[in-house]
């Protein structure tokens, strides 16, 4: 009843090409953003920030990056963790070695740019290799980058086992100390990144990615250059992933070692993309929320029912339930949570008169 576009006439091209052409959608998104910026800081506890909101936002950004590559351009990548590590360590080295650059945003962007460069390098094989061969080939980047940061001493400033730490963070003179500061900074960056990503995927470049995804030979014939298209997808995707890696390291962990970006991280983010929905930015957020919240819920659940278990058993059970949930969700809705959302919206348009 409320959600209906009847009577909303578009009289200009600008109005027709808005991101959210329906008024109710615009209001809803605006309300969510305002609530995230203003309402959340009023009641959120440090636990909510550090364990739920911050991981959720940062990993959403990584998921958006991976979704650009897998969902929009159709190139399956299992090297996400490696690219996050590139972002994190590149940002760390700039922050450490050039003290004049103390603006975190510049540091993060540098991390993203370095990750994009590495992404282009490892994207080159995608021109020859396709499908699962490519997926396995991207594992090469994961293992190589893992090794690189564990062994090349200069990159980790000669610390043992490659563990590094950062302190005293600031953006334009704003000192980032409390969880709330971190949250607001991350939120701002993620909102901007999402806007950029949205405009990329609905523009010329995004359409060329989708053409390559749907059928690369046909795309080549109608005039998209596969080399440029695939490499831009790798670059943009790695840029987002690199920035999120830098944020994860600086704002979530503070002190980290290469293990923070191992292969499990890659799979985690791929799970987010698949569960959320391939080729959907909203799906990236939903998937990230699901994957971040699920282990926390599973951890708390036995406590709520008063069941006591050893931590080892609990972690094994968590593995089991997590695996089963993944399979269950894939069976119920292979197109992800974003599809469920779309179906719900469709239902809502007709409600309460479905005929």
């Amino acid at each position, binding site marked *: 009843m409320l959600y209906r576009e009847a009577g909303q006439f578009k009289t200009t091209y600008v109005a027709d090409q808005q991101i959210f052409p329906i008024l109710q959608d615009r209001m809803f998104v605006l309300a969510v953003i305002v609530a995230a910026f203003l309402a959340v800081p009023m009641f959120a506890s440090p636990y909510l920030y550090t364990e739920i909101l911050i991981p959720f936002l940062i990993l959403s950004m990584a998921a958006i990056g991976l979704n650009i590559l*897998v969902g929009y351009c159709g190139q*399956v990548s299992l090297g996400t963790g490696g690219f996050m590590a590139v972002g994190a360590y590149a940002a760390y080295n700039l922050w450490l070695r050039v003290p004049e650059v103390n603006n975190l945003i510049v540091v993060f962007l540098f991390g993203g740019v370095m990750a994009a460069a590495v992404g282009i390098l490892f994207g080159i*094989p995608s021109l*020859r*290799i*396709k*499908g*699962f*061969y490519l*997926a*396995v*080939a991207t*594992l*090469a980047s994961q*293992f*190589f980058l*893992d*090794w690189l940061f*564990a*062994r*090349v*001493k*200069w990159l980790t400033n000669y610390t043992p086992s*490659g563990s590094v730490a950062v302190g005293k963070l600031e953006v334009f003179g704003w000192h980032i100390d409390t969880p709330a500061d971190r949250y607001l900074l991350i939120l701002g960056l993620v909102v901007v990144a999402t806007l950029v990503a949205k405009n990329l995927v609905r523009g010329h470049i995004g359409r060329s990615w989708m053409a390559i995804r749907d*059928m690369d*030979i*046909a795309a080549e*014939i109608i005039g998209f250059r596969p080399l440029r298209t695939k490499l831009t997808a790798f670059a943009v995707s790695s840029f987002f992933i690199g920035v999120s890696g830098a944020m994860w390291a600086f704002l979530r962990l503070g002190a980290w070692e290469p293990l923070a970006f191992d*292969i499990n991280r890659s*799979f985690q983010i*791929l*799970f987010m993309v*698949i569960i959320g929905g*391939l080729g959907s930015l909203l799906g990236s957020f939903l998937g990230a929320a699901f994957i971040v919240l699920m282990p926390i819920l599973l951890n708390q659940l036995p406590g709520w029912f008063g069941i006591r278990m050893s931590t*080892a*058993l609990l*972690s*094994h*059970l*968590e*593995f*089991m*339930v*997590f*695996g*089963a*949930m*993944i*399979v269950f969700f*894939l*069976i119920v809705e*292979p197109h992800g949570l974003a599809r469920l959302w779309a179906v719900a919206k469709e239902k809502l348009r007709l409600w309460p008169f479905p005929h």
Partner: protein
Amino acid sequence: MLGAFLETLIGGLLTGVLYSLVALGFVLIFKASGVFNFAQGAMVLFAALTIARLSGEIDNKEVHLANFVVAAAILGVAVALIGWYAWREYVARGAGPDERRKMQMLAAVGALVGGIAAYSYGKGAWPIWLAIAATAAIMGLLAYAIERLVLRHLVNQEGIILFMATLGIANFLDGFGQTLWGSDIYKINLGLPKDPLFLFENVFPGGLLVDPGELVAAGIAAGLVVVLAIFFQKTRVGRALRAVADDHAAAQSVGIPLNTIWLIVWTVSGLVALAAGLIWGAKLGVQFSISLIALKALPVLILGGFTSVPGAIVGGLIIGAGEKLSEVFLAPVLVKAFDLAGGGIENWFAYMLALVFLLFRPQGLFGERIIERV
């Protein structure tokens, strides 16, 4: 120098045989159902854990007696089913309609026999052959469960969705195995000879050092490959499997039941996983890290081609040898040149090797040629 080189080469080749075994499991499933089965490593872990715990002493802290009883029951049912199938095929073709009844009775009797066996071997500690048999039955049951609960519902989905589902299965199996059997490091005692063997002592000073256990393992693997080749080329079921691999729809339309084929394929690769777990566990002990050898088998897979059994074998040997040689001879050079904190390049060297190779031959060593049409 040559002696050291040959020693490393042989060691690498023997490890490579194990990679081939795991890769073989991948290939079987990919060929028959197009599923990129990431759970193969988890299946290896699960099989190894089951064998290790069934053949080890029972301790009430982690493993309940019920596990042994259930394992024995599964074994019993499996034996009964096989017996019933053989009886139906060869003795009583076209018998009456009360076969279902007979099957149930046979299964019950088998379960009873299994249960009695479990109790008669009181404190766990089954003989290794019985443990292996029981594990084989359990892997069969697992294959059935996967086919029934997961694959059947995901027919006609895209490859990546199926891949993700197997990741879920891998997670589940990792947790399930460790919940049932505990998560310490366990031993599998196959009674393999442990003393190192020296070969060609008159050719090289000091001879070549070879671990006889690895030789036996390589022998088992080679035997398994021969058996699989015969199974694929010479039996009815093998022919059906190849038909399905060639063209699902055509195979189905000439009357090959896809679901049964998938069940068989998953069982076979479960058995391959069992062999891999057995050898690996006997060599290094059973622990969680076993499930990571799936990652070692992946470069083998892209090198050899996803659909090629000989590719998996040859690729495994190349990767095994390349990995060890690079670690021994290339890593020190790199460490010196770039001032690294230790070598450890074997983790990525295999991938790089495969990647560079793929740039020149995208379908792998023996993969089918990729022909693209619009």
